[in-house]
């Protein structure tokens, strides 16, 4: 594919001096039009014939969700108004709070950032957060107001918010429409004029930062790198500075967006390296690549191993699919360094895996890919955070599975992770945000009137509450106006307890949750009721109980099914009726048997969706 691309577009491989290189990214809130604008840049620079459906987002799933999970980097050649040829490296960044670290690495690879704001949406919390990250990375910022083709929307509000939030003056702001192409030329000129060229030493020992990596079945890992010092070419032996692992470089090049090989990448360049690396775990985002011999002494700053924050159990509905699930996780993790998984056994669910994720979205994406791409029927248990527990004998354990909580009498202190959350919303929703946050054990920190009628509220919240439904609750309480951005802020001791659920007298480990003692009883009651709704009637009575320790706090029953018959069935009904029964049977097959009770997949997650009842 690479050679074809080369043949088609010879001008892209043309080398330009370092002073004509511009490395930049686009930061934007979801749906503010980043991908469409990026595609338009590609089109204008001749990389693609015509802007297709968001070329930079490659996975179907990403496209459906309208978000970018992985970043990509595309090289553009742009002949500027000054007559010079410029090499523009556009680095795409992920757009969700789960992937904040990846964002920071992408920013690190750049000298400039295009800050994109939707003319009708204005500045969002996430945009503010990302602009701060870009400023921290000392990037030159080009503010852009996008979607100016949208009818009946005046840019005044967005202009004012840009000024209020960041002090950008109207004359600095580029007005664009990714859809129609208006302003794209002006944007390219601004990038050339305002973003500084890299100024780096190509003769020093190699130091290249991985800002993304992707696994390809044919060539192994494709590492997206920014070369800060030195040079790298096929045949070189390289070393990953975090692990010391060595690899032989097989290809170097860039994306146009097709892969285009070049004979070397050198200081200032953005591109890819392949080196027969078997999985992205050996090519971690943020790691520094150097040469194996006479390599750099120090890695580039800022490497951090991806830390899963949310855990859940993933079990095949059919135990026979355990190996298939393991295989699927192995393959997914080739491309997802943040995905952690370990074997786990549940009395209720059989053999499965405890999986760790960056956040809920990451968890949902993985689960969906496993089901869709690997055709697995899975049960996911309610997500949990990692609790730190000091036992009475002084030992210290970390527990990410409520089922494995030590008995109460052995616990001295339980600590739970907390986050500092930054919620932005129009002023009229402040009351609702406070209520939603207070209901979820939030501690109010401060409130800022940032601009216009926009308010930023700062809360310290248990991560567990965020995992449950905080964001959903915020969205519904503010009619979708609130935005949320958070980061981990350590552990604090809390009075937590385990709530267990029993089905026909047997505790179901997969349904246990940890929650604050104050809410334990009401949660137990709500969960029992939710389960009653989620579990279809069986041929026998099903009793559902919630207990805290040995105390039963809620009890309900599902009456046995006594009638399920088509009373009128003659010659014309046979095939239709048989097929109906087959479909119903298929539905049953997708339920998990706990004891002899058929429990649908949704039941395990439904225990979390408690907001309106709480």
């Amino acid at each position, binding site marked *: 594919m690479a050679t074809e691309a080369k043949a088609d577009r010879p001008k892209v491989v043309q080398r330009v001096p370092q002073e004509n290189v511009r490395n930049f990214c686009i930061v934007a809130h979801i749906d503010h039009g980043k991908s469409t604008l990026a595609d338009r840049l590609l089109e204008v620079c001749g990389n693609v014939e015509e802007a297709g459906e968001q070329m930079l987002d490659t996975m179907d799933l990403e496209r459906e969700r309208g978000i970018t999970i992985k970043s990509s980097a595309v090289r553009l050649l742009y002949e500027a108004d000054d007559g010079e040829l410029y090499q523009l490296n556009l680095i795409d960044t992920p757009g969700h709070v789960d992937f904040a670290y990846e964002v920071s690495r992408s920013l690190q690879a750049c000298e400039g950032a295009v800050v994109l704001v939707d003319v009708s949406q204005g500045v969002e919390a996430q945009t503010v957060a990302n602009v701060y990250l870009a400023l921290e990375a000392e990037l030159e910022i080009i503010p852009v107001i996008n979607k100016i083709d949208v009818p009946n929307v005046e840019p005044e509000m967005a202009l004012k918010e840009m000024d209020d939030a960041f002090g950008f003056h109207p004359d600095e702001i580029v007005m664009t429409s990714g859809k129609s192409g208006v302003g794209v030329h002006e944007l390219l000129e601004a990038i050339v004029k305002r973003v500084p060229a890299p100024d780096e030493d190509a003769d020093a020992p190699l130091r290249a930062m991985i800002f993304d990596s992707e696994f390809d079945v044919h060539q192994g890992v494709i590492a997206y790198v920014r070369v800060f010092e030195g040079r790298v070419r096929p045949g070189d032996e390289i070393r990953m500075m975090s692990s010391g692992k060595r690899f032989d470089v097989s290809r170097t090049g860039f994306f146009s967006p097709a892969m285009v090989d070049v004979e070397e990448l050198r200081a200032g360049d953005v591109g890819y390296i392949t080196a027969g690396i078997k999985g992205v775990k050996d090519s971690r985002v943020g790691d520094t690549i150097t040469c194996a011999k006479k390599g750099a002494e120090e890695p580039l700053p800022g490497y951090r191993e991806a830390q899963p924050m949310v855990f859940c159990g993933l079990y095949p509905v059919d135990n026979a699919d355990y190996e298939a699930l393991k295989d699927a996780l192995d393959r997914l993790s080739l491309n997802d360094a943040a995905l952690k998984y370990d074997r786990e056994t549940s009395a209720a669910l059989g053999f499965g895996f405890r999986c760790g994720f960056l956040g809920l979205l990451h968890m949902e994406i993985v689960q969906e890919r496993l089901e869709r791409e690997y055709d697995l029927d899975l049960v996911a248990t309610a997500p949990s955070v990692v609790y730190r527990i000091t036992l009475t004998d002084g030992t210290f354990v970390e527990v990410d599975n409520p089922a494995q909580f030590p008995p109460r009498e052995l616990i001295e202190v339980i600590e739970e992770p907390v986050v500092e959350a930054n919620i932005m919303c129009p002023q009229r929703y402040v009351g609702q945000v406070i209520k939603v946050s207070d209901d979820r054990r939030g501690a109010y920190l401060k409130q800022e009137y940032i601009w216009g009628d926009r308010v930023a509220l700062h809360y310290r919240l248990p991560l567990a509450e965020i995992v449950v439904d905080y964001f959903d609750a915020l969205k519904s309480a503010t009619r979708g106006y609130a935005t949320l951005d958070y980061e981990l802020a350590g552990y604090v001791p809390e009075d937590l307890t385990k709530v267990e659920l029993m089905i026909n007298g047997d505790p179901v480990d997969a349904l246990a949750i940890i929650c604050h003692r104050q809410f334990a009883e009401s949660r137990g009651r709500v969960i029992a009721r939710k389960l009653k709704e989620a579990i279809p009637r069986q*041929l*026998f009575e099903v009793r559902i109980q919630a207990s805290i320790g040995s105390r039963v706090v809620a009890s309900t029953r599902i009456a046995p*099914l*006594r*009638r*399920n*018959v*088509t*009373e*009128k*069935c*003659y*010659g*014309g009904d*046979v*095939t239709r*009726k*048989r097929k109906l*029964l*087959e479909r*119903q*049977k298929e539905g*049953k097959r997708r339920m998990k048997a706990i004891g002899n009770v058929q429990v649908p997949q949704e039941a395990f997650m439904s225990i979390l969706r408690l907001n309106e009842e709480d």
Partner: protein
Amino acid sequence: MARDLSVYVHLPFCLRKCHYCDFNSRPAAESERARYLAALKLEIQRRAELLGASHIRTIFLGGGTPTIYHGEELAGLLEMLKDTAASPPPAPRMPETGGSAGVRTTNGMGRGGTSRFAGPSPVPPSGRELDRAAPPTAAPRTEVTCEANPETVDVAKLRVLREAGFNRLSVGAQSFDDDELRMLGRGHSAEQTALAVAAAREAGFTNLSLDLIYALPGQTLNSWRQTLLRALELQPDHLSAYGLEICEGTPFHARLQAGEIAPVEEAEHLAMRQVTRELCEAAGLDRYEISNYARPGFECAHNITYWRNEEYLGLGAGAWSYLDGVRSGNMREPREYRAAIEAGESPEEYAEELAPEDALAEALMMGLRMTEGLLLHDLAQAYGAESIEALLQRARPLVEMALVEVGAGRIRLTEAGEELHSEVVMRLT
């Protein structure tokens, strides 16, 4: 040996559509009804070979409201069917109609039906016998049923039918409460039903069935009891009682969606079924299928063909056939059906040759509707001993739950099992 065959004829027209009805039924102009009848006769002609080569056990005219047609029209239709069946096959028997074992594997349950029946169906002597041209064996008389709505029959019309050879009348009574009849959108009163029954008796129908619907929105156990008592007073030989099923696309469904009506609670529904059983049995009508009751010997032979998964030929719009292990269905829309027939094309729009496991599933699904259940020996012969072993394995927990009984060489549902027929069949297949 002639194959045994039941024949269903669909007459899809009615005076007006009832509020609960999702059958293939609609009002139509008389001219359209006439053209349909002509098309039907053409289809009968096309089936001459099969009909001539078969021993016709039962004929059933269903609808719609068949009696929307004039007595003479129905008589003519039956006449033609009889004549076609009476004509010897025009050509040497084709292998596929000769019952060669190779193509009939999925239909093994169909053999020797009547011998397993609780008692031979003693159709009262009447009219001409259809079987006169059949091989000179002691073949039983053919059961010939016509469905009728009370407001579309009188003694004269019924006499025409009776004389033409119809020997069983199935009257759509549905309820004996005039308010309920109005709610159902029926076009008759309880009194009219009683008159229709009297007329049928007068016309010589000695095998008469009533159809009733219960579990109507707002119906009480007591009002259902009253309907049942009034029905039984008329001394039907057979009674079908169906719980109302509110189907999508019906006015009832719209009202359900709008929250204007609510389905009867499960416990109430079960109580209604219980009272049905009790009152029918007290009146000498034994239950022999989930929803069907009869005086001994008056069980509906035609419907038993379906439940025993035996062969039948369906004629008319939306009619289904089960022949040589293939289930097939005609186009549902009467106009489409008619147009296809008139154009000399096949009216069939669906056909499926059943895989053995599907055939077994259907045999179980249908056979377990009958109180007598299924003979394991027959099942093993038709589907192989191994699949019956597996069936019995799956039956075990259901036996423990007292939903299924296995014994005396049979598998059958208990009363509780019948109420959960769908659930049980899912677990058995």
